[in-house]
């Protein structure tokens, strides 16, 4: 009886260890990246920051001279390789994101906003790219794009 119990413990440990090992491979070899897109309106004026942007505030303040930041929209897309995901920006233009391939530990994403910008971006899991400058209302539109944000610790406090 005691031996049976011991045997069960060993088999369970083995199974759990293999599952843990396997999960890393699953994450590492994920074929469907998750893209988190935050659309931020930035302007100058009386200081005012959307509380939802608190994790980004320090970085935004370091990068830009704006004093007002408002989160206009936030979407998360999980896309297969070659699958195009499209968001409509507040100014009506479509933002297209397409994962092209994974090169080592970096995802190659094609980004396109018609009549504004097109580019290929290689980005590691958990990292972000900021695209800004397009005029919007009395300020500018800033796009914060993260790849697999859950695979890294929070970017800022």
């Amino acid at each position, binding site marked *: 009886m005691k031996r049976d119990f011991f*045997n069960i413990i060993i088999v369970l440990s083995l199974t759990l260890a293999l599952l843990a090992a396997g999960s890393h491979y699953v994450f590492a070899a994920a074929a469907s990246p998750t893209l988190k897109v935050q659309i931020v309106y930035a302007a100058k004026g009386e200081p005012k920051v959307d509380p939802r942007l608190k994790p980004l505030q320090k970085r935004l303040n370091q990068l830009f001279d704006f004093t007002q930041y408002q989160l206009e929209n936030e979407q998360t897309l999980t896309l297969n390789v070659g699958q195009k995901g499209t968001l409509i920006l507040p100014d009506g233009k479509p933002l297209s994101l397409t994962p092209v391939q994974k090169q080592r530990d970096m995802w190659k994403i094609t980004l396109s906003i018609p009549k504004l*910008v097109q*580019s*290929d971006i290689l980005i590691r899991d958990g990292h972000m790219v*900021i695209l*800004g400058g397009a005029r919007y209302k009395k300020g500018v539109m800033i796009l914060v794009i993260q790849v697999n944000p859950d695979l890294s610790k929070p970017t800022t406090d």
Partner: protein
Amino acid sequence: MSTNKHDNDTLKNVHRLHDGELDEAQQAEIMEVLKNDPSMEAEARSLREIGEGLRHDTEEALRSLDTEALANEIERRVAEEQASSRSTRLRFLWKPLSFAAAAALVVAIGLHYHYRQSTSSWQPNSVIVENLETFSSKAQIYDTRLDGENEPVKVIWLFEEDSVN
């Protein structure tokens, strides 16, 4: 001599009777001879006595047989045999299972730390911008990294004619 001849004849007839070589009349004649043969009668009585004795012994043996005890004994021996077999199997599996579990744990821990290292350590080229085409008058790409932070951020800034900043 004549008695021996009589016995031999009788024996032959018995064999012929057994082999089915005699007709009904001959069979009846042989049976009559056998019935009147005193040696056959003694033989039959002896056989009957032996049969009675065997039947009596068998009945005695069956009466004295404790079937429940026998069943319990068989069950005990089967259980012993199974336990012995399982014990041998466990002894055989114990070492490979231990090694496999230990190896899997080491691999899992190694992968875990490798994975954490690769995602959390500072890497200057975490974001690379290629083939940038823009319709704005000017575009600038730059990296930024906050003090004490691991992850750098790539910024693509498009300057439009009346854009702010």
